[in-house]
């Protein structure tokens, strides 16, 4: 299966899926442009972070939507040309602190992704 948090080929797979499929994934997903503007924000992500989709799409993810990730451990990693790294993290922002596992993904394509699952 390609639609799992840990799937090897998920980057390519994500790029081919329509929003409806992405919305029903069993993990949180943020799809951003290469400069960090949120293009898509799925349902599970809304549930985990408490930030609504309407309030995130079109904004800069690291400074406006999830400034709790705007640091050396997360945001800085996206400055690399390509990226596939998992990090343990804490989401705080509008919610109580939640330990999460993040998968930071960036390929050659137009978009970069952050996959999120609660720990």
């Amino acid at each position, binding site marked *: 299966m390609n639609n799992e948090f840990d799937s090897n080929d998920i980057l390519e797979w994500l790029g081919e899926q329509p929003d409806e499929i992405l919305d029903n994934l069993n993990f949180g997903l943020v799809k951003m442009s290469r400069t960090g503007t949120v293009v898509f924000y799925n349902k599970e992500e809304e549930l985990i972070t408490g*930030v*609504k989709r*309407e*309030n995130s799409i079109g904004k800069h993810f690291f*400074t*406006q939507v999830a*400034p*709790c*990730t*705007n*640091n*050396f*451990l997360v945001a800085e990693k996206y400055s690399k040309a390509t990226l596939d790294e998992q990090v*343990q*993290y*804490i989401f*705080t*922002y*509008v919610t*109580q*602190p939640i*330990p999460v596992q993040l998968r930071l993904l960036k390929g050659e394509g137009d978009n970069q992704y952050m996959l999120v699952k609660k720990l």
Partner: protein
Amino acid sequence: MNTLATEIQVQKMLAIIHQIPLGLIETDSVGNIKQINAKGVQLMLPLFIETKLAPTNLLDLLKLIAPELKAKLEVSTVETGNIINQEHYSIKRQNEEEGKKTHYLFSVNKLSTDSFMYTFDDITEMYKKEKLMSQALQDKAVEHSKFEIASGVLHDIGNAVVGFGSYVTRIKKSIEQSDIGTLNNLKLFIEKQNSAISNAIGEAKANALIDLLNGVIVNMEQEKMDVKQSINEQLNIISHIQEILNIQRQYVKGQSSDRLPINLRSIINDSTAMLLASFDKKGVQITSDIPIKVPPIKGDRTKLMQVILNLMKNAVESVFSANVPEKSVHIVLMVNEKSIDISITDNGLGFEGINGDHFFEKGVTSKSEGTGLGLANCKSIIESHNGTIHLESNGAGLGATATIAFVIE
């Protein structure tokens, strides 16, 4: 206000808090984290992971990484307000190596019975810099006091030498006023009265008396000459010692003397004199070829001596380390039409690649314990005297020649 609008407001506020470049954590009374900003996560998450604690309770973490801080919080009786203000804590890490300690600065404020605000930052780099700086200051102070001591010792030796000199001078004066004159007068008197004295004691005895007096006078004069010569030698040695002391004093003070006309011949001679013991000890033969008349150049005697001493020391060390039967250093001074050239040639280790000018760059050295500052310093001194300095070798094991050329107008 609808929920989205409220959320936008909250988002704005939190965006500000999250961008503060300081770690911020709000906890309840038992340490459960209510809020933590981006920098806070960056600073604390690695510690949570390292200690294998769930990243939800700060007090649990502090118990392990900064127990003194936790203890302070526990005994605090503050109702609301500041409990800890800008205090430095060394963070206890797992498997941390000495010298790689992490240092955090903490402030803790009690906002209400159920709200504690922790503000913190990683000050490790700053702490290290500060340590280095205070170490440097301490080193400087030690260095300074060494100079003070050296300066004091030189001063005391100088005083002793002056005292000794004036004592020797007094001896010199006192022998000038000897009894030889009186004896001469006595001899002349006896010669004049020779006939009367001959009548009284006989001619032979009278002549013998004059001979005796003559002998005494000659002996005394000879002795006086000897003493005078040895005193003069002593006075020369004293003035030589004083000269050396003066040079050393200038080193210690680090004073640069004014640009006065100086004689390069005397600089080389003084440098050789200062290093003679070291040449001897290391079995290095030193020879020189310096014309008696060398036109003076304007310069800083102390600094130029420093250069010559440095080059000579390098030559001696190189020769000493080399496996050659006859260890030698040869110094040549040549007065040309437009320049005065000094070359110091040794038959020591030498180096590959003919041109050794890169040795004059800061930080370049061939010595295991060298700093590479000596020759760089030499170069800048020579250049400040309108001169050039070069180093050449015919190859490894074939010795080297350092050449200084001073332009004369």
